């Protein structure tokens, strides 16, 4: 397989908590969506931060396009668990922040920011301040901000965990559509099995700092909401559920 992002036998320990990531290897193909699923505290967020270069592994290495990752690169985007918007900037300026930190913004980039917000259904709210937005809308802004640099790989840390079920379904649909048009590879951390099956090409299960062989999700693309109720979808969820129960 043409490995584009490669995690190679990663180990990581926090000073007071002992080893939280133990011998984790993972490969991501270009444009692939890969979900990391596991219980709280299993080390999945740590793996994500190691992959993004926010943490440095004690052993092993991360490679993006053959280059070892030591710190975040311009080709990466990251969406945090909470939207973490800057409340003194307008919605559009929040989206443009990754660009404005590195110089003045060309008009075409500004137009692209507006386009992303339109695709996220937020065109009318461009100039509002984030605190006027609902939780779901804030998550959409955070995703648009991560995509503004057209990253080759996107790291997502349970970005939809705090949303209600219907908002989450809509966001998953819109998020998939955006990633598909950009061909972005995604490493997506979640604890929600149906979310993992709906989004992913492959799902890896993590338990106690270790990763298991990925499960292939052979559902056709583009995915749509009706698929959630098909037998094939439910069979995959059940398979995942059994695998998770086995870790107890």
């Amino acid at each position, binding site marked *: 397989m043409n490995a584009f992002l490669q995690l190679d036998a990663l180990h990581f320990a926090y000073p007071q908590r002992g080893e939280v990531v133990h011998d984790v290897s993972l490969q991501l193909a270009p444009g692939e969506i890969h979900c990391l699923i596991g219980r709280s505290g299993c080390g999945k967020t740590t793996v994500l931060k190691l992959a*993004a270069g*926010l943490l440095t592994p004690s052993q092993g290495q991360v490679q993006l396009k053959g280059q070892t990752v030591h*710190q*975040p*690169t*311009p080709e*990466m985007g*990251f969406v*945090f*668990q*909470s939207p*973490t918007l*800057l409340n*003194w*900037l*307008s919605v559009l*300026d929040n989206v*443009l*922040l*990754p660009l*404005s*930190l*590195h*110089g*003045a*913004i*060309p*008009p075409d980039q*500004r137009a692209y920011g507006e386009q992303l917000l339109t695709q996220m259904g937020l065109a009318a709210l461009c100039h509002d301040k984030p605190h006027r937005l609902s939780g779901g809308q804030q998550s959409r802004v955070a995703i648009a901000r991560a995509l503004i640099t057209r990253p080759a790989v996107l790291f997502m840390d349970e970005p939809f965990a705090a949303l209600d079920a219907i908002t989450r379904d809509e966001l998953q649909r819109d998020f998939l559509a955006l990633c598909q048009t950009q061909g972005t590879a995604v490493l997506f951390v979640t604890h929600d099995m149906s979310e993992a099956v709906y989004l992913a090409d492959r799902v890896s299960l993590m338990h106690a700092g270790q990763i298991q062989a990925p499960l292939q999700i052979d559902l056709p693309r583009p995915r749509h909401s009706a698929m959630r109720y098909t037998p094939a979808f439910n069979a995959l969820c059940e398979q995942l559920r059994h695998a998770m129960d086995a870790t107890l």
Partner: protein
Amino acid sequence: MKRDTLLSTLLGLTCLAIWEAAVRVGHTSPLVLPAPSVVAQSLWQGLRSGYLGPHIAHTLTEVVLGLWLGASMGFVGGVVLGESARWRGVLMPYVVISQVVPKLALAPLFIVWFGFGTLPTVVMTALICFFPLLENTATCMQQVDANQLELFRMLRASPWQTLWRLKLPAGLPSIMAGLRVAVVLAWVGAVVGEFIGASRGLGALIIAAQGSMDTPLMFAVLTVITVLGLAFYKICEWLERRLLGTFSDLSTRTSP
């Protein structure tokens, strides 16, 4: 909102009316408690004759100088202490000790060091304004949301950018709260400083009025100090809104 303002104004006017009536009915000596109308008259005379003008200018200069010196040094010190754990560890105990020393009690010492006049008062005002800014700036710099800091790391922001684009705008409400405290204290510093070692300024005028038993003049000067203090406070609020606007404009630059 408008109704509240109206009620608030009415309350103030009622209090003044009761004061006026009480003084007239009770025939209180103006030496003890002059009626508002007498105070207003004294104030008007002082302003019109040009007697109050130079004193106001003198105190205003001291307040502005002291506030500017103290607040800017406090702000810079707060940024340094907030950014560097080492500086914090080394300097913080001394900062706390010097904060506990009653600054007004240092006034006689300052007269020994700096002589009579403007300088000791400015130094004391600066010293008083220094700490609220230092404390609030240093604290707010450490209370920045960890997720936002991680976001800035992810976006490869330099420490300088993280300071200007994240820590300062995020801490602005807290920094401005420190400034509002400093603005109020600056007037205390300047007036009390003048009590002790000055021949000019509003504080010195209060002492002089006390000496000549001119109680209406004392009230008139107090009114001037209150109005000026209020004006400074309002300027602070305006500045806060302006700065927030500036911080949001910082990132809206579009290249031509």
